[in-house]
């Protein structure tokens, strides 16, 4: 069998975890001697990656080929996937519950509801299903899907350690304690909880501190507006909304950070946790969704906490060197595990179809 192995994704952009996963898988497939391309709806491709994928309309799935569909939201790619003559594989990245977007973006909420309703049909049309975490796999098993394998996001710690952007390094230097969050600025990330905790930390514990929020604000501008207003009204000039950052700027953000904090209430896996670990930053996150699994028994986690308590925990994690050492050691062990993940194994399964 030597057919093509193509991938369909709902959107393709620089810095996006799913796009990066698809790109890395394509690299592995091409190195195995297979022809492989990524197909994306033309209106969902970022400017900087236009030459790196093909328009969805050009996809021709033939018998003997394999097509892998990265599923996370509703997309015209679903129809193309289900109509393909190729052997079909789904890579499930989880669907953010629509309730998070109600009020902020009714159209997007409707899109997410549609994606969840269509999930069963997509799964029904697949010969093999890859979930990026056991958390996601459990969700699929509850829907009655039997052929689910857990294949984590294709991530190598070295990928997250590119050369940092000097301008961003200079911007976030200056001796301030930097608390970092990386991710799309979307309601499921509950960034307001982070801002409220930072308000207490900055006002009552350490005025020489900064909260850096690095991630695109375009996925939910109304939520972003709320966060900007919140920071402005609380007089928190040191909450820095970085917006979308390129690889070098992201690397600089990680290198400048003293603590990575995430208060998200829904994540299928959460790649930025691993990126922070790869850059030697202690991680604090909520124990929810696929995040405990991504951390694999490392870092620091909490369940529920008041903003004032979280501020006290920030202080503890930023100043207690024994605790920081313990966290960093655990993170190094986790990174070692990830380095030994054999990424070629899932590829072989795909090629054997």
């Amino acid at each position, binding site marked *: 069998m030597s057919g093509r192995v193509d991938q369909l994704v709902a959107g393709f952009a620089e810095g996006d975890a799913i796009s990066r996963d698809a790109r890395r898988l394509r690299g592995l497939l091409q190195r195995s001697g297979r022809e492989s391309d990524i197909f994306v709806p033309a209106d969902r491709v970022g400017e900087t990656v236009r030459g790196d994928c093909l328009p969805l309309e050009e996809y021709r799935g033939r018998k003997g080929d394999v097509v892998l569909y990265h599923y996370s939201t509703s997309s015209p790619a679903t129809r193309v996937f289900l109509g393909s003559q190729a052997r079909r594989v789904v890579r499930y990245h989880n669907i953010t519950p629509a309730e998070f977007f109600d*009020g*902020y973006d009714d159209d997007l909420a409707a899109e997410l509801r549609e994606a969840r309703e269509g999930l069963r049909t997509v799964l029904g049309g697949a010969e093999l299903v890859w979930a990026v975490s056991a958390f996601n796999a459990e969700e699929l098993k509850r829907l009655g899907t039997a052929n689910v394998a857990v294949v984590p996001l294709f991530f190598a710690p070295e990928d997250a350690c590119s050369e940092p952007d000097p301008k961003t390094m200079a911007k976030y230097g200056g001796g301030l304690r930097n608390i970092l969050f990386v991710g799309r600025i979307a309601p499921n990330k509950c960034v307001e909880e982070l801002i409220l905790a930072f308000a207490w930390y900055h006002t009552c514990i350490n005025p020489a501190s900064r909260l850096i929020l690095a991630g695109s604000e375009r996925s939910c501008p109304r939520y972003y507006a*709320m966060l900007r207003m919140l920071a402005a009204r609380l007089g928190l000039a040191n909450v820095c909304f970085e917006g979308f950052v390129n690889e070098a700027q992201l690397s600089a953000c990680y290198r400048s950070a003293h603590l990575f904090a995430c208060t998200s209430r829904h994540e299928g896996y959460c790649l930025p946790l691993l990126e922070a670990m790869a850059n030697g930053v202690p991680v604090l996150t909520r124990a929810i969704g696929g995040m405990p699994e991504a951390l694999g028994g490392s870092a620091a986690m909490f369940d529920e906490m008041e903003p004032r308590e979280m501020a*006290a925990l920030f202080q*503890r994690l930023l100043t207690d060197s024994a605790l920081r050492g313990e966290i960093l050691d655990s993170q190094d062990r986790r990174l070692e595990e990830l380095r030994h993940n054999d990424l070629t194994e899932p590829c072989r399964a795909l090629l054997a179809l």
Partner: protein
Amino acid sequence: MKITVAGKDRSDVLVREITAAAANLSDAELERLLAGESDLLLLNEAEKTDDYLDQLITLARHRNSVDPSEMNISAGKGIVAGLGRALRRCLWKMIRPFHDWIAFRQNSVNIMLTYALEFEKQERQAAIRKLEERIRRLEDGRKTEGGNR
């Protein structure tokens, strides 16, 4: 509350220490501001985009001005900090009239923008109501026409 560190449940010690440390955090100004922010955080509860916009416009109307009296010159400890504070107060007094003039002009722009936003929404809603009414009349007319045939 549960806290785990490096895969171990450390709630027994850390929760006690953090709760005690959190209880000592106090800042009257921050508490006042946070109490005022509950209206803003209500945006999270909006069930429809229209509810969000209504709440946002209400907030914008109540918050469209910069109040220079809120300027807080924090006190430090020791003689140097005291002198620094006195100097900052003196500088603030000197620049205050210019600052107030700029704040006045900025507030005028903010008020105009807030009203523009509010009026635009009202106009849009009125236009939608008219269109809905027209569609309803047309549909009723078609039904009657169909019935007469």
